[in-house]
């Protein structure tokens, strides 16, 4: 027993009717790709927006402060009407000190964890430990800032009496802790992609697991490991809240890690928090500092991409 409508119109008829209607009218099929392309364009526009914003406001800044002063002067002292000095070097040195300490903490621990997870740990413990370690990377940076100021700094000060309350050491260490999972996770991925047949070859010759890790796995995964370190450096350079909370606000050009510092990021925060009028030189200075910061991280990201593309191992 067929249904009434189907007696006169087969399903194919219904479909072809519908099809004609679809072709004649407003066509989703043609409009959708355009809409999607526009959304994809947003990400490009964001980059363009960032670059243009930084360039224009930085140019305004350089009409008031000479670029030579910005790059070479050894003092960053923007809040004085009469004796203002805009030398980026103290801020850069603050950033580099913190980043250096972070890398010293994160690289050995991160790579050692990666080796342990990839070469020694059982599948089961790896599956438990890795996600827990990655939780460290998901903790908001303001929480790390709190941790640096209220926990790490007091401990360091009890060991090193000369340490100031605000210093480079404590935020450096805490940023290092924050980027451990980044290095560990990405390096572990690189090591795990070394085929097991190669591991068997080394073990079959009587290698210990340590020799296998050191002489076969690490060199084979080197590009991935280096890329992970470079990305971690980039992350440390751009880190803001930890250094703002625990690093202080004293831009000084020195290699002393026990004294109060200011990083590029912390300076931007300091100005944003204060009542700095729109259009003042100080206002534009945050864009010049932001530009410098952006260039630093951009170079790091390009290096990371270059390394992982250029030296990718084909097994």
């Amino acid at each position, binding site marked *: 027993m067929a249904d009434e409508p189907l007696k006169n119109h087969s399903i194919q008829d219904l479909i072809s009717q519908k099809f004609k209607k679809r072709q004649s009218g407003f066509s989703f099929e043609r409009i959708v790709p355009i809409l*999607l392309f526009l959304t994809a364009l947003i990400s490009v526009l964001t980059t363009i*927006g960032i670059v243009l914003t930084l360039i224009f406001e930085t140019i305004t800044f350089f009409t008031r402060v000479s670029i030579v002063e910005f790059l070479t002067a050894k003092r960053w002292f923007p809040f004085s009407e009469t004796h203002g000095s805009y030398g980026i070097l103290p801020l850069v040195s603050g950033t580099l000190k913190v980043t250096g300490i972070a890398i010293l903490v994160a690289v050995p621990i991160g790579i050692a964890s990666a080796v342990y997870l990839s070469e*020694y740990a059982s599948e089961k413990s790896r599956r438990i430990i890795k996600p827990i370690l990655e939780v460290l990377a998901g903790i908001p940076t303001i929480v790390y800032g*709190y941790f640096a100021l209220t926990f790490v700094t007091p401990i360091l000060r009890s060991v090193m009496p000369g340490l100031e309350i605000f210093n480079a050491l404590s935020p450096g260490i805490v940023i290092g802790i924050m980027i451990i999972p980044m290095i560990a996770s990405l390096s572990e991925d690189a090591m795990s992609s070394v085929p097991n047949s190669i591991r068997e070859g080394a073990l079959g010759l009587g290698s210990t697991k340590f020799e296998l890790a050191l002489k076969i796995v690490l060199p084979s995964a080197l590009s991935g490991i280096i890329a992970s370190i470079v990305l971690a450096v980039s992350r440390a350079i*751009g880190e803001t809240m930890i250094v*703002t909370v625990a690093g202080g606000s004293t831009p000084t050009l020195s290699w002393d890690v026990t004294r109060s510092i200011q990083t590029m*990021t912390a300076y931007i925060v300091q100005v944003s928090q204060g009542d700095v009028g729109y259009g003042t030189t100080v206002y534009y200075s945050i*864009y010049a500092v932001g530009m410098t910061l952006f260039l630093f991280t*951009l170079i790091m990201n390009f290096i990371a991409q270059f390394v992982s593309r250029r030296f990718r191992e084909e097994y």
Partner: protein
Amino acid sequence: MKLIDHSKVLNHMKPRLSFNVFFRFLFLLATLFGLLVLGILLYRIISEGFPYFDLHFFQSLPSRHPEQAGVYTALIGSIWLMAVVAPVSLILGVGTAIFLEEYAKKNAITTFIQINISNLAGVPSIVFGLLGLTVFVRALALGSSVLAAGLTMSLLVLPVIIVASQEAIRSVPKELRQASYGLGATKWQTILRVVLPAAIPGILTGGILALSRAIGETAPLVVLGLPLFLAFLPRTVFDIFTVLPMQIFNWTSRPQEEFRALAAAGIMVLLILLLLLNTIAVLIRNKYQRRY
């Protein structure tokens, strides 16, 4: 003719084996270090913040007096922020992912967009703050509003959602698409009714990850000029507001012990919010895992 003295090899064995044991221990220690720090961090926060962590803390406005202060405005502000970031970033992110995976031809423009996205992911969050300050706060005159902050944060987390959605869409089997095309379905019908439903768990997981990032960020919001201290709630997206991390930042920067404890209690609220989000992500992943 033997080139290798096997007795020497045997003598060499013992130090090698001890080396292995030693380094195994060292590597294990390094791995445990991360876990240990995580444990200490959580313990510190809970032990410091617990005395203030009560119903009153959730219901109260920030105050000069630590014993009266609460996170009410900041918590509601964070929820406002999520309400803007979630739809905006999801629409833009998934749209971009569909375009790149389903429509875009493999040409220079696509490669450029792709490289651009991975570079965007590496831009420090504070630089996004400068972008938001210039474009949303000043040029569009949105001020330090929910909308300005929401749009800035959406752009910040966009790469996370795009990459996650791309992976999810890519992992939908070709056979499913072919089955749909085989029935005469159009491309958009196939994407809407076959590809997207199959990719939803991956997309939502990525979306939640991005949302967690957005509600934990502080730096760009400081640049946008969000107040550290606010005693009223926003009524529309054009109103000024503040969020949990800003409130925590405010309390942390004060020298008095009591405010530090308040900061810890605020952190507990923030972490619980993040935990909730991530639990949802795990639930989604488990519910939909391996259906094909």
